[in-house]
């Protein structure tokens, strides 16, 4: 009896100890199926993981061997897939837009608004397309070309019954070469692009003084639009995520080979910061040095800055030759995010952006038509796809802080379905007569002006 008692005690002790050990072996992890919030797998999920091959009720092929062995010596050659094509690719985009607009200017005595003498109510049809080709005869070579086709069919002024058609417009006014270039490389170490090409050197969103390459200028109402690029030979030397690029640039006013500009640029990454430094040299123009920076402190926002420093006569100032330093400094911030319900239903997506620009060293700058001020600020807020309805709202405020004039543009757009979008916009130009944003026509000082626009886009898309 005693022995049996001892046996039971020892057994109890051993089992109790092992249970204690088991609890402590798992630290703070709970081994309790009921505590799991996931619940059991569904029958369809179970059927996905059967040993025998099959198909679930929703048509998913399932089961069979979980692991398949693969030899480690296969050469997939996948890196060349996208570099070569037996066919020439044709693609493009299309848009057909109708817009009606109205304008009012503030009376010179400040008492109320009136229709301006310089403009009237206007209806316009705009038909536009871009068509491109891309040929890749081998992995080292690519030929690319694209043309813009743009034709305002007619413009109908409010008090006229006959559409106003500008018959002086020629073929070159309707069809314009957007890009036309060839890619080739030397030993896959130096990569060349030769021809007319879109180049986006700068990082600024509304102002990009460091972009000394592009012919086009950023439109604050559409800051992400493609800018027209120059005819150039570009050589790129990638060094990991860093890269050295040199452009031989043929500006539109070039007359001799000596007028070719050289633009070397080096971009490198430091942590999560990308820095670019570059220079611009052309024998008959002011030499310039550029620097760009993009970074993020909190991960979701983008901080960007540019600097341009030159010596001589700044671009656009032709009033007199000067020998002095000039500079443009700019910095900005962009933040994008979305507000979602717990079920990942997108209430809206939003983008906030702001950028400041400082012009230094141009005492004759105030005589310029565009950007005559020393200080500029642009703020933008955009909310898109509100409650997944396709409704978007956008507002942009651009100010010349030096003369106090500003331009506010707000719009509401609604994408009814793919290919059909309607929009309403309001532009308010504010300032004193003679200020930058109230001077619509060179030499004619204006006043505050409001312009309303309703437009519809039909069939916009790409192919």
């Amino acid at each position, binding site marked *: 009896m005693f*022995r049996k008692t001892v046996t039971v005690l020892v057994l109890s002790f051993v089992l109790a100890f092992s249970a204690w050990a088991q609890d402590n072996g798992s630290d703070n992890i709970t081994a309790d199926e009921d505590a799991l919030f996931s619940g059991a797998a569904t029958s369809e999920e179970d059927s996905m993981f059967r040993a025998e091959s099959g198909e679930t009720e929703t048509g998913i092929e399932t089961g069979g061997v979980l692991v398949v062995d693969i030899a480690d010596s296969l050469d997939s050659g996948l890196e060349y*897939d996208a570099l070569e094509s037996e066919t020439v690719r044709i693609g493009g985009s299309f848009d057909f837009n109708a817009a009606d607009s109205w304008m009012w200017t503030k009376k010179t005595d400040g008492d109320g608004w009136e229709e301006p003498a310089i403009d009237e109510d206007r209806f316009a049809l705009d038909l536009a397309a871009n068509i491109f080709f891309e040929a890749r005869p081998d992995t080292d070579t690519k030929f690319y070309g694209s043309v813009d086709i743009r034709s305002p069919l007619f413009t109908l002024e409010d008090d006229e019954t006959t559409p106003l058609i500008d018959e002086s417009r020629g073929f070159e006014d309707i069809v314009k070469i957007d890009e036309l270039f060839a890619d080739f490389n030397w030993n896959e170490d130096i990569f060349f692009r030769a021809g007319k090409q879109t*180049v986006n050197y700068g990082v600024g969103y509304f102002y990009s003084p460091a972009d000394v390459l592009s012919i086009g200028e950023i439109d604050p109402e559409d800051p992400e639009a493609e800018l027209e690029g120059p005819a150039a030979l570009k050589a790129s030397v990638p060094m990991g995520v860093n890269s050295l690029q040199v452009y031989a640039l043929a500006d539109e006013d070039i007359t001799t080979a000596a007028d070719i500009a050289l633009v070397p640029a080096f971009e490198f990454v430091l942590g999560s910061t990308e820095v670019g430094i570059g220079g611009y040299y052309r024998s008959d123009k002011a030499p310039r040095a550029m620097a760009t920076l993009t970074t993020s402190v909190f991960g979701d926002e983008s901080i960007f800055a540019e600097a341009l420093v030159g010596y001589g006569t700044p671009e656009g100032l032709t009033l007199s030759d000067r020998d002095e330093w000039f500079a443009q400094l700019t910095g900005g911030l962009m933040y994008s995010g979305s507000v979602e319900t717990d079920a990942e239903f997108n209430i809206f997506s939003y983008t906030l952006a702001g950028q400041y620009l400082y012009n230094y060293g141009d005492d004759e700058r105030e005589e310029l038509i565009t950007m005559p001020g020393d200080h500029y600020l642009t703020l933008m807020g955009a909310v898109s796809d509100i409650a997944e309805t396709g409704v978007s709202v956008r507002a942009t405020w651009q100010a010349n802080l030096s003369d106090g004039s500003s331009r506010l543009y707000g719009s509401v757009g609604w994408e009814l379905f793919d290919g059909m979008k309607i929009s309403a916009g309001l532009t308010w130009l504010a300032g004193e007569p003679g200020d930058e944003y109230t001077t619509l026509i060179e030499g004619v000082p204006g006043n505050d002006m409001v312009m309303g626009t309703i437009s519809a886009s039909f069939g916009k898309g790409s192919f």
Partner: protein
Amino acid sequence: MTKKFLFTVFALLLAGGAALWAADSEPDFAAIMESMDMRSKFEGTDFSSRLTIITEDPEEGVEKQVLNQFRNDDADEFLMITLEPLSKKGQGVLIVEDNAWIYDPESRKFTHMSMKENYEDTDAKMNDFGATSYAEDYEVARYAEGKLGDYNVWIVEWEAINDEVPYPYVTAYIDKASELLLMTKEYSLSKRLLRSSYFLKYARIGEKYISTQMIFKDETMDNTKTTITISSVSLDEVDDSIFTKSYLERVNR
């Protein structure tokens, strides 16, 4: 009798010892997660493969994308290039460490994107394409044993220990025998089920594993799911020039 008693005690101690051993052999989930991460990481070699992504959406219909992906896990580099649809051919994303760039062929601009975002219009997150980092991102809160189809599994609840992951709570179904992840249920902060992921097939290359058939089901919308199939798997060396913005620009139109 004494012998019989001693034998009984010995047997009981043996049983206790076995129980203790069993206690010691309870799953070391930290080690399992590290093992899963290590097996998905192709260190000392490059990795390339082709992905076929089928997205089924009741409103948008069925869309097919074909992409090539390249990984250099030693340098934390990743590149993905679209082959289909033709209208997006050449578009892609380059990831170097925590930086991701996409290239817009329209404006010819590079833009930065977060690793938490979905890849284009699919239910797959950017995190789904690279090597896993479960051990760094999650800790185990609870576990249980269970069955998933014909597999004996650990059902493990993970809680995120950083905000780098798209889902703060995950329930993982891990095959006991192979320690491969078979299914995950991914939850929001309020523990609402947002996505179910199924890893139906794996390829083993040496000691490394990669899931070659995955299904991501959006649990917030009925009948919305993304199926990813991986083929043309290779560990052959990928040229360093591939993991550059220059290459991304070059393959674009």
